[in-house]
């Protein structure tokens, strides 16, 4: 970007604002398209898999029946013919194999395959599936299957149906033909309108661009994007309808053929069609398992409706018709109507994701516009504001991985073989926190020596390397090593960024300086996890780490443009107190009470619950990582909104103590909420209460340190005291995942949440006791006693 500035000379701000508008628009376009395609692909593959499995179950029943009659699987000489007959039912199915537990093919619709071995991955998936049907992906082909059992429940083998993804690919190509041009058109239009609007706004405020209000600019970026997303949603609805409806009809036809076969058997057994029993029940069960079928009916040859289930559709509904024939005689038909709302429902399911993307786009636009207006030539404190963009981008990289990191660790540690000890999963997270905690003081001094800018650049590069390594890790140990590299990069950027702020803001402006720094981190906390969760679900966990690495590289650009050497003399040097100072501080019993009963528990809760337990629990409940991302985002949003409010109302000792205690209690209540409420309701309550609790206490807690440690600050300096306080807090970060890991291993999720919640409530009480003993300062004691 410095290059752009030089070329355009006089109006750097306008160009940068236009770039911002385009970046936001591009982000919206990419995320919308990604989400839409993923949803469509998901819907299509589910329908197709259901079709294949319907054939598989039919086959398994025939085989099990034959086996129960005393014919054994290997010697069932009709088996290949049976397989071939079932294969021919649906052109989608490539080959059908029956393989034993060792993975050896006993029989196949392609006789040459008999005796071959199925791939290990397929055998493992089948082995783990138990009673439920299974599916696996295999270079370009998919395999779905069911397990075969004897009459006494022993597994005798598996049926595996390979089916080509051709049909899926064709449908996706057709959908892309509609979606991609529409995306290009609408998001292109949005970009042009944003461009015009931003240019116009910038021209109007030309003389006062520096420090101008960022909101008109942010809106100029967002409103066209919002309209484009809405228009794109309509196109997506049509594309979904075009691709999904025929697939749903084909699936209904396959399911209907199964019902027709039963009706045929019943007639063969001597029962008249109209006298059959339990037809409605069978149709109803079919509908329950396939919610897209809104109506199912059986009619006789004259068209008279004999049996039906569901609301009769209007004429416009798409219907599948399965004729009922006996030889050449047609005696009726089955009719299935597809729910026209099922496509809309799918689009609706995307609404939450789209809303998340919009919130993130809002924060992103605000952040970027603030960067441009704040750092424009002539803006007050422009050099200070320049730190915001690189810190935001770099922290965003780490935040992206929050919702997927725990399950990624679990996956690598287990190597595809069952569950892994929860404590193992917590180790890399704790190690990361430990390196950041111990590294910061040391790295702060180091960055002071070599220059903050150089340190930041180095940190971002180290981070990028760490993320690439994490993304390509093959096992637990290399992941731990690469996460340590990430932690090193994080600690460098964090401490060098803080140092930069101090240098640029000077002693007088340090509060404002830190507000800039914390603001960037909070914005990243809102954006990162939610987008990271979506990316992890749609692109995969490894790809998410690579996106993080790209963000680290991207952070290098604004870092490059930072001022080389700061103005004001750095004051951080006095942090060199070490552990001696820490011990002296803890002798102040009220300070000890504050750290042990408030600061450390708060961090244990935050890291242990939000960054460790929640992502694991959400995946355990069967929700995607995007859900974990949303929960962490809710916490971040509440922090952003409530921290300033709490800070405004947090004057005076008693009120601060109340805020800290109340915050802890709120966080604790969050733990109980999960234990008491099932599924997502409890988790959302937890994220909200954690956000509320942390927001209430965070400012008051820091202010209390100053009040409780006046003597120590007078003798050792404010940095020494706060440095020690932060160090203790960070030890809470380290303990968080370990404590949560031990709890979840010994009592399960509900127990872990409840115990952590109870612990927080107990700490809130102890804090109250610890801080209410007679104080050194009469004024303070008087206030606390009130």
């Amino acid at each position, binding site marked *: 970007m410095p290059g752009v500035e030089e070329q355009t000379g006089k109006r750097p701000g306008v160009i940068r604002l236009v770039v911002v508008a385009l970046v936001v628009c591009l982000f919206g376009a990419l995320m919308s398209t990604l989400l839409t395609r993923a949803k469509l692909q998901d819907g299509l593959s589910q329908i197709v898999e259901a079709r294949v499995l319907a054939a598989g179950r039919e086959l398994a029943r025939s085989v099990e029946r034959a086996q129960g009659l005393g*014919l054994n699987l290997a010697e069932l000489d009709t088996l290949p013919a049976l397989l071939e007959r079932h294969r021919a039912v649906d052109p989608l199915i490539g080959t059908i194999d029956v393989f034993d537990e060792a993975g050896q093919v006993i029989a196949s619709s392609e006789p040459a395959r008999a005796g071959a071995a199925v791939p290990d991955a397929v055998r493992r998936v089948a082995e783990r599936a138990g009673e439920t049907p299974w599916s696996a992906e295999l270079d370009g082909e998919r395999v779905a299957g069911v397990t075969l059992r*004897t009459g006494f429940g022993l597994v005798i083998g598996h049926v595996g149906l390979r089916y080509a993804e051709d049909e899926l690919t064709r449908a996706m190509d057709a959908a892309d033909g509609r979606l991609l041009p529409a995306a290009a058109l609408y998001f292109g239009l949005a970009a042009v309108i944003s461009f015009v609007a931003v240019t116009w706004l910038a021209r109007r405020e030309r003389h006062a661009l520096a420090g101008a209000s960022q909101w008109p600019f942010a809106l100029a970026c967002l409103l066209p994007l919002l309209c484009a997303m809405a228009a794109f949603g309509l196109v997506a609805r049509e594309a979904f309808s075009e691709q999904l409806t025929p697939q749903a009809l084909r699936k209904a036809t396959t399911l209907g053929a199964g019902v027709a076969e039963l009706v045929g058997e019943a007639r063969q057994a001597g*029962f008249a069609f109209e006298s059959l029993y339990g037809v409605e029940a069978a149709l109803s069960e079919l509908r329950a398992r396939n919610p897209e079928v809104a109506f199912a009916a059986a009619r006789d040859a004259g068209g008279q409706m004999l049996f039906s289930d569901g609301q009769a559709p209007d004429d416009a509904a798409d219907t599948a018709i399965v004729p009922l024939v006996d030889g050449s005689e047609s005696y009726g038909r089955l009719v299935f109507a597809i729910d026209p709302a099922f496509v809309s429902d799918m689009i609706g399911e995307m609404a939450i994701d789209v809303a998340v993307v919009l919130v993130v786009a809002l924060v992103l636009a605000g952040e970027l516009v603030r960067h441009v207006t704040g750092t424009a030539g002539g803006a007050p404190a422009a050099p200070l504001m320049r730190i915001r963009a690189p810190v935001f981008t770099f922290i965003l990289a780490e935040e992206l991985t929050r919702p997927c990191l725990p399950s990624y660790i679990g996956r690598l540690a287990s190597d595809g073989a069952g569950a892994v000890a929860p404590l193992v999963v917590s180790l890399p997270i704790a190690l990361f926190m430990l390196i950041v905690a111990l590294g910061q003081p040391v790295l702060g001094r180091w960055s002071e020596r070599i220059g903050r800018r150089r340190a930041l650049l180095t940190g971002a590069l180290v981070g990028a390397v760490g993320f690439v390594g994490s993304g390509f890790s093959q096992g637990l140990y290399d992941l731990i090593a690469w996460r340590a590299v990430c932690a090193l990069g994080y600690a460098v950027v964090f401490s060098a960024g803080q140092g930069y702020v101090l240098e640029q803001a000077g002693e007088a402006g340090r509060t404002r300086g830190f507000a800039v720094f914390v603001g960037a981190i909070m914005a990243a906390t809102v954006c990162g996890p939610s987008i990271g969760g979506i990316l992890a679900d749609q692109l995969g966990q490894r790809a998410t780490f690579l996106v993080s690495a790209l963000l680290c590289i991207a952070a290098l650009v604004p870092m490059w443009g930072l001022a080389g050497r700061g103005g004001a003399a750095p004051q951080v040097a006095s942090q060199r107190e070490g552990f001696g100072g820490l011990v002296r501080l803890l002798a102040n019993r009220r300070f000890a009470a504050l750290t042990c009963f408030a600061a450390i528990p708060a961090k244990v809760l935050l890291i242990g619950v939000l960054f460790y337990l929640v992502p694991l629990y959400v995946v355990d409940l069967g929700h995607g990582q995007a859900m974990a991302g949303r929960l962490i985002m809710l916490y971040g949003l509440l922090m952003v909104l409530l921290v300033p409010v709490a800070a405004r109302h947090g004057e005076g000792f008693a009120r601060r103590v109340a805020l800290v205690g109340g915050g802890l209690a709120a966080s604790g209540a969050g733990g109980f909420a999960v234990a008491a409420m099932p599924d997502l309701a409890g988790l959302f309550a937890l994220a909200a209460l954690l956000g509320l609790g942390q927001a209430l206490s965070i400012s008051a807690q820091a202010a209390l340190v100053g009040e409780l440690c006046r003597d120590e600050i007078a003798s050792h300096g404010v940095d020494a005291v706060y440095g020690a306080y932060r160090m203790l807090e960070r030890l809470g970060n380290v303990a968080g995942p370990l404590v949560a890991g031990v709890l979840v291993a010994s009592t399960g999720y509900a127990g872990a949440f409840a115990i952590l919640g109870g612990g927080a409530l107990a700490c809130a009480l102890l804090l109250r006791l610890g801080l209410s003993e007679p104080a050194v300062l009469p004024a303070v004691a008087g206030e606390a006693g009130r």
Partner: protein
Amino acid sequence: MSEGICFGASAGRRRFLTAASGLALASAAGPLLAGAERPLRIAIVNYRGRTRVEDGFETYLAARRIRAEILWHDIARDKQRLPGVVEAIRAQAPDLVVTWGTTVSLGVLGPYDGVDPVRHITDIPAVFTLVADPVGARLVPAMASSGRGVTGVTHMAPVDAQLRAMRAYRPFRKLGLIYSPNEKNSRLVAARVAELGRTDGFTVAERTFPLDADGRPDGSGATGLLDALKADGVEWLYLPPDSYLTTLARDLLARAAELGVPTFASTEALVKAGALTGVVSRYERVGQFTAYKAEQILLGGRAPASIPVETLSRFSLQVNLPVARRMGLPPPLAMFDYAELLEPEG
């Protein structure tokens, strides 16, 4: 390996075989016996000739490529022949004995609390099969373990599974039951049905055959009992695995069809006698399961006492089509998917 086999000293040979099969399992990663090895010798004692249980037994062994020589014995419904069979088995000294049905099993193996080493086989591992209630018959003290060198397979489906199938066929609120009060097995089943009625919310009306002076049941008024149940408003008649009831089944079931009361059988014999439907064990499956237990003992090296006595986990739902047609009670459509439709000739 074969030079190690010492014919005659049966205990020593069994130890050797156990060790050898352990080796085979470890090295070949499967229950395959090396081709050169001597086939296992299994004595099977039947009650009324060969049945489909033995078909299933042999199929299982063949599928697992277990070479076995079967030594057949049959008492042809005559208990008097049991001592002779025991004698013959002692002379053959097989690796395993399989006994068919309660009478044969008790005759060959003895009740657990009354084993007589002279009359019963005690030094050869045994698997009994097709014994409806091994605890009631005192073959074993508990299903978990016989406490001796015996394990086995029973063939009755759990009562709650049977009632579920009945409810799937046609729902009911009142269930009728007829049984002989002198048969312990029937009393147990009737108690279980009553217990399920309390939890699942249906009422049970039961009639028992009167007992004569010698304590034997008297079935002369059987159809009268049925008429009384019909008058009580029962919607189903449930037939427990009652031996005496089975002897009267044909007439009783014909009368039930006339009265329009659907009948549910707990054994295959009762379905064959004309019950509308029933959940039963297929004899082939019972045989396969018996062979699986035999494999666990002979090749898996497990002590019979450590193998629980079990029933199948899957059963056949049989529907007697002529009865269903005559009564105008077709099975629910979904049942055609898994039911075994019977169309007895004639």
